């Protein structure tokens, strides 16, 4: 199968076949990261720009490593050092970068839809590395890859996503991706963190974590943004952690072989208790990070014509 997409803007736009192709390609790249010399010449002579308008450690590093292991030249631009502070518009930045002929532009932006603007303007491939509360497709792909490896399949699994759904691009991308791949997705969070009509995405929604955890094969905990307290979305961290933290006691409601995921960075003791996060029998959090590099290598490869 040939990969036809110019850009990766969201999981919503990907077909099941495309998701499978990405995951299979990523699996074949996993091994490279275990070699002594972790580099192949596949993308030699290609240029990848990481354009990050929002602070990020793991995603940016992951893209950079993915590019470097494939021998591409990677350039990082972050909002604090770029022309953004001088007031250049995203459109002008896009045209400027386009004129330098990169092959792929990876963008993270706090505004939902920003990668779409870029994609409509420039001829290069765009990868959305997270836009506002909209989508974070590479995170969902690495999550699906992790689940597939641990469980042998995605179809038929019950996946519980817990936390601030309203502000989570990870949740949206995973709802699309996991539902497409046949999983049964349930959500839980305080009523103030559940966006309107979210059930129309085909998910069940609960306001108590316990109801979502019952018989779950996979539990995905979302990071609580501490600054959201100011918007009265929740009264206090104390109360949140008492009722929405995944811990030794409520995890018993899930299946015995449940795996626990978190897109990171984690707030220990807020949404996940430290002993769960560090328990190798259920926590796959570091495994997710590992898969992230492979998934991003796969996307860079496919978008630059690797499947031809």
């Amino acid at each position: 199968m040939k990969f036809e997409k110019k850009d990766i803007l969201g999981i919503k736009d990907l077909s099941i076949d495309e998701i499978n192709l990405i995951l299979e390609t990523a699996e074949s790249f996993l091994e490279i990261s275990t070699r002594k010399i972790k580099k192949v010449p596949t993308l030699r002579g290609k240029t990848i720009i990481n354009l990050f308008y929002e602070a990020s450690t793991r995603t940016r590093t992951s893209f950079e490593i993915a590019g470097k292991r494939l021998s591409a030249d990677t350039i990082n631009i972050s909002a604090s050092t770029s022309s953004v502070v001088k007031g250049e518009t995203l459109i002008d930045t896009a045209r400027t970068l386009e004129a330098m002929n990169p092959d792929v532009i990876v963008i993270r932006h706090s505004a939902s839809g920003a990668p779409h603007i870029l994609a409509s303007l420039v001829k290069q491939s765009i990868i959305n590395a997270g836009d506002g509360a909209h989508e974070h497709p590479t995170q969902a792909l690495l999550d699906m890859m992790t689940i597939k490896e641990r469980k042998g399949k995605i179809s038929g699994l019950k996946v519980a996503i817990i936390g601030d759904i309203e502000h989570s691009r990870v949740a949206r991308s995973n709802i699309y991706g996991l539902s497409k791949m046949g999983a049964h997705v349930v959500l839980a969070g305080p009523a103030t963190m559940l966006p309107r009509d979210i059930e129309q995405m085909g998910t069940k929604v609960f306001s108590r974590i316990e109801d979502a955890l019952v018989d779950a094969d996979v539990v995905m905990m979302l990071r609580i943004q501490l600054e959201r307290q100011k918007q009265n979305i929740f009264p206090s961290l104390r109360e949140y952690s008492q009722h929405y933290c995944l811990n030794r006691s409520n995890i018993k409601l899930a299946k015995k072989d449940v795996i626990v995921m978190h897109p990171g960075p984690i707030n220990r003791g807020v949404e996940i208790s430290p002993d769960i996060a560090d328990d190798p029998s259920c926590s796959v959090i570091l495994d997710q990070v590992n898969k992230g590099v492979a998934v991003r290598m796969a996307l860079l490869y496919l978008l630059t014509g690797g499947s031809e």
Partner: protein
Amino acid sequence: MKLLLTGARIIDPAQNIDSRMDIFLEDGKIAKIGTDISKSLKSKSSEKITKIIDLTGMIIVPGLIDMHTHLREPGFEYKETIASGVAAAVAGGFTSIACMPNSNPVNDNRSTTEFIRRKAAQAALANVYPIGAISKDSAGVKLTEFWDLKEAGIVALSDDGKPVMDAALMRRAMEYGFSLQLPVISHCEDTNLSGGGLMNEGYYSTILGLSGIPGIAEEAMVARDILIAEFTKTSIHIAHVSTAGSVHLIRDAKKRGLKVTAETAPHYFTLTDESLQSYDTNFKVNPPLRSEQDLKAIKEGLADSTIDVIACDHAPHGRTDKEVEFEYAANGISGLETSLALSLNLILDKTLNWPELIAKMSTNPARILNLPKGTLEAGADADITVIDPLLQWTVDLQTFRSRGKNSPFNGRRMQGKAVLTIVGGEIKYDGR
């Protein structure tokens, strides 16, 4: 200039006229309207008639009035000037427009009102009726000098764009304004409920990850203003109604005999929030495009006269205001040049008949603003719009007279267009 218009179907809701007649214009007034005036005029005083225009197949209506426009001057001339705004108005078939006070400076004082009227007189295209601010700088704190503003020429009061959050201030404005026969136009939006919102709150805001503006942000203030009007025995005009809930509240208020009037804009009965999936900022408007169910309720409200007026909320912007990320983009649609054609769809889909539509675009806004307009009665100002109801055309932003090229309707196929706009007996736009 003397003009004899013959052969057209004449629709004047104010006189209950809908038939083929001639109309004779003299000295800026409608001199005569009737079936056989072309013959009698020709025999008596043919030398006096300077121009006869055959308008067979066309429809003549009282000059259209848009009671909700933003002309941006003074202060934001790169978006629109009064001259470019009135050029857009006559090209869209509007002989009169009322402009909102949110310029810079805000039209909260006599000098600004006089400036707007002077600029409009210089442009000499459509009539411009300034709307004065309710509060100084539209800051919602201190009332403006209504009396002085009225003497300077304002026809209504509004803090459009900056909802009056202080209910006590709104009460005072409605009481004082009513005593001066100045209608108060309310932009209904509880900013605590809408705060930070970018689009209608619902399924599409959820999947797009854009923060939502709930329908109740509008409805809570509609309900408040209806209650104030009832308690103080005054009137209120609700601007740009966008939700089913507002339609219900206004319908109920009218049933109870309250002096409540309302307008909606063409985009609220044409588009829904589903259109925002492209993140195209031309669809960003406040109040936001709502759901299919709201759109249906707006049409029902138009059909049963709950909604009295169609006004386009013409909100021109420059490219720099729109060519940015969705959340940074300005709200608004440049509407004067598409409003009529979009509204004519209401006739095609049988929501309204011709006289009902023309009442909402001429007779009713004239009545609400107390303007001596909106009729083709003999003696009235010769403000006339001639519509070709079958003309097929395609919206092309590059041909807009407005400086604001921000329209989600670019490229859309339309049927029906104003082809001749006559203001005070003079042809101000001829698109035939």
